[in-house]
């Protein structure tokens, strides 16, 4: 199982729908300050870690929706989809591809509230189902596989008990 592509629309600085193919091996991402590199990392976390505390840079979910610029008005919803190659059936779904999509939409009745929607292969799903798929796939936002900007030294700054607990969780 591996990641095939990241799709974003109206997610932070990514207004237009964009599809980023992810190949096997080592992919480098670079670009000027403020261009949106860490926003791509946030998009991955947005799908992988619905309950994750790692999404530090947004106080509220709605801060993730494109907030407009000199030309375009703020959007009302944003979407991120991660498409996985599942030919080895690591994810217990009988299809070669599995797409996990998360959408948040400003609620029309109460503008301060944002509603979250989850889709698996295009069909409406739930946050719990998302999480059970992610656990099967060994993909979690809380693990050692995602290191946010400026957080590299956090791994060794944890308390001794916390480090032992994390090794215990692996066991």
């Amino acid at each position, binding site marked *: 199982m591996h990641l095939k592509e990241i799709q974003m629309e109206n997610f932070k600085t990514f207004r237009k729908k964009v599809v980023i193919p992810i*190949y096997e091996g080592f*992919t480098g991402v670079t670009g000027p300050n403020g261009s949106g590199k860490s926003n791509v990392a946030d998009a991955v976390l947005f799908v992988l870690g619905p309950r994750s505390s790692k999404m530090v840079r947004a106080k509220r979910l709605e801060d993730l929706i494109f907030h407009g610029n000199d030309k375009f008005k703020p959007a009302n919803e944003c979407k991120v989809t991660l498409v996985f190659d599942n030919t080895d059936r690591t994810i217990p779904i009988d299809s070669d591809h599995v797409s996990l999509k998360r959408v948040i939409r400003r609620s029309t009745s109460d503008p301060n509230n944002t509603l979250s929607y989850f889709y698996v292969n295009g069909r409406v799903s739930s946050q719990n189902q998302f999480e059970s798929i992610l656990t099967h796939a*060994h993909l979690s936002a809380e693990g050692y596989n995602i290191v946010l900007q400026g957080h590299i030294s956090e791994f060794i700054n944890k308390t001794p008990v916390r480090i*032992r607990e994390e090794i215990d969780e692996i066991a």
Partner: protein
Amino acid sequence: RKEEFMHVYEGIDRNFKEIYQKVSGGGEAFFELERPDDPLSGGLHIHVRPPGKKMTRLNALSGGEKSLTSMAFIFSVQSWDPSPFYLLDEVDQNLDAINAEIIAKLVRENSKYAQFVMISLRKISLKEAHHLYGVTLQKGESVILGRVELKDVDSYEKGDGSAM
């Protein structure tokens, strides 16, 4: 339960010693359990000794030494708790040119077993990548420049680059 923990613990400890020695050019590292007889009731201390120095508390290490130790720890866990996908956002910020290259080569080696996406501003790291994407800001929106060549990175950074 204790046996299971000890089995994983000893495995990661062995990896950590090996990887730290490799990335630090001869330093020493090991784990120490607070309560070896009843490990699940105590914590776990990480000790490192950069080459030529005494064993130090992690807090006394320099910025670059901490980043290197953290990366060694992350890789030592990987073979026990493999994830198919890794995302590293500017983990080379604190590293000097030599250590940045060592970490990037380690990422390239490990990318045989898992996908690695590494965000970086440093050519010394990016040159190890198999594929390279550029992200730039145009009219206040992010645009992904398809697979770019490292030598082009300079020009587009100069161009619409100064996105600040």
